[in-house]
């Protein structure tokens, strides 16, 4: 009975998000096709299978890029686009559907439940329809049918409700304030008069914007995780004090963790394996840097449709590569044990915290604000 209750609620909420009937048709195809294609993708015929798989994923990505309507992809400007086709949750559906289709062979082998109801609940789960945490299919289904789970005690219920309420406060009070402040300072950058003042104002704006992104996303995750817990679902934790990180690599291990893990498994791993068996044989470190850069660039681009997100992706890629190169260099210089001592120095701790915070704030300033437009405006 429980899966059908979720099915009904998920469907009802999903349908409510549609503006036009066309979006409904596209969304239905977007959900149904991967489900029915998954068994075909793992059929026994190795060679035919490989072609089919390639065609499937290329088609899926092309459709995704078209539906998202990326501003800077010229070819999409030339063909007609119907805004009504886009629907809520498209980007995150993509992650879950790739996970499902990629894992299908394994899931079948290990006899994980694969019914359409479970798949539909996984993809459209209303707790996570708008954003993360990105669960894996196996994780979702195992948790959904876990009968060993202890019933929530009165204390649990209170603490989860607290989490939801505090989540709303982060979302609607703290993050709204940060958003107001960042908007205010962003508007004042062009009125600064001289470049020095402009940079200071830009940094103030960037700091508020970074605060906004953190409280907005953490608040949202608190609300959905707490609410899901009350309905008996466990969502993985998505944040672990990200602004306490001392390097960009560490930052991405603490911020939006489920996304970092997803891109590690489905973007980074295939890229580095391809590089190591191809152009970068025996050049492990170079391959690692190259793969990291490409992974974060792709992830950055996925975040939004205008050119600012390309810059954001480039900066994130550069940030993690710089951080890996630095660690590598320090390891060579001090040795493994010496590095640990080095990391305990007060000056180093302060520098690393400041650098990471600043780098995050500057790179995040391209998220949600047209900083590229601002910069090109200045140049003109």
């Amino acid at each position, binding site marked *: 009975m429980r899966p059908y209750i979720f099915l009904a609620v998920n469907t009802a909420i999903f349908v409510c998000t549609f503006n036009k009937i066309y979006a409904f048709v596209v969304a239905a195809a977007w959900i149904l096709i991967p489900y029915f294609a998954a068994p075909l993708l793992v059929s026994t015929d190795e060679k035919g299978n490989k072609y089919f798989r390639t065609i499937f994923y290329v088609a899926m990505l092309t459709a995704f890029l078209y539906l998202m309507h990326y501003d800077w992809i010229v070819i999409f400007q030339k063909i007609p686009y119907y805004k009504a086709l886009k629907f809520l949750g498209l980007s995150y559906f993509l992650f879950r559907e790739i996970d499902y289709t990629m*894992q299908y*062979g394994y899931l079948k082998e290990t006899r994980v439940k694969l019914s359409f109801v479970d798949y539909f609940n996984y993809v459209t789960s209303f707790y996570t329809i708008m954003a993360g945490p990105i669960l894996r299919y196996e994780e979702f289904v195992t948790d959904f049918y876990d009968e060993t789970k202890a019933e929530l005690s009165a204390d649990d219920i209170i603490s989860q409700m607290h989490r939801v309420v505090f989540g709303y406060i982060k979302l609607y009070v703290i993050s709204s304030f940060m958003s107001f402040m960042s908007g205010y300072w962003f508007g004042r950058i062009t009125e600064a008069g001289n470049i020095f003042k402009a940079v200071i104002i830009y940094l103030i704006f960037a700091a508020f914007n970074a605060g906004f992104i953190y409280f907005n996303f953490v608040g949202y995750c608190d609300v959905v995780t707490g609410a899901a817990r009350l309905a008996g679902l466990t969502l993985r934790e998505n944040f672990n004090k990200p602004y306490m990180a001392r390097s960009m690599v560490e930052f991405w291990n603490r911020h939006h963790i489920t996304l970092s893990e997803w891109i590690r498994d489905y973007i*980074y*791993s295939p890229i580095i*394996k391809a590089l190591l068996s191809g152009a970068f044989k025996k050049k492990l470190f170079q391959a690692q840097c190259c793969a990291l850069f490409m992974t974060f660039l792709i992830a950055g681009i996925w975040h939004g449709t205008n050119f600012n997100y390309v810059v954001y992706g480039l900066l994130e890629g550069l940030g993690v590569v710089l951080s890996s190169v630095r660690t590598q260099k320090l390891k060579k210089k001090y040795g493994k044990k010496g590095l640990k001592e080095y990391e305990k120095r007060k000056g180093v701790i302060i520098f690393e915290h400041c650098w990471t915070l600043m780098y995050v704030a500057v790179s995040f300033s391209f998220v949600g604000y047209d900083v590229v437009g601002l910069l090109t405006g200045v140049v003109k």
Partner: protein
Amino acid sequence: MDTKSRLEEVFREVFDDEEIEITNEMTADDIEEWDSLTHVQLIVAVEEEFGCKFSTVEVMKLKNVGEFINLIDRKTGNA
């Protein structure tokens, strides 16, 4: 040499530590340097040593070193 000792050699090389001794129950939490980046490095080194290929999903599902040894044996036909 059996799979376990060969794998141990690979671990020592990848993590640059001659004192590592692997056990079946060992996980990424037991070796400080074992993070998502060195994990991929480890997989590639194992593939080279044992002359086999693992899929992304197979690698993702490994819960400890014991399971890794089983996977290698299955792939190389030792099991």
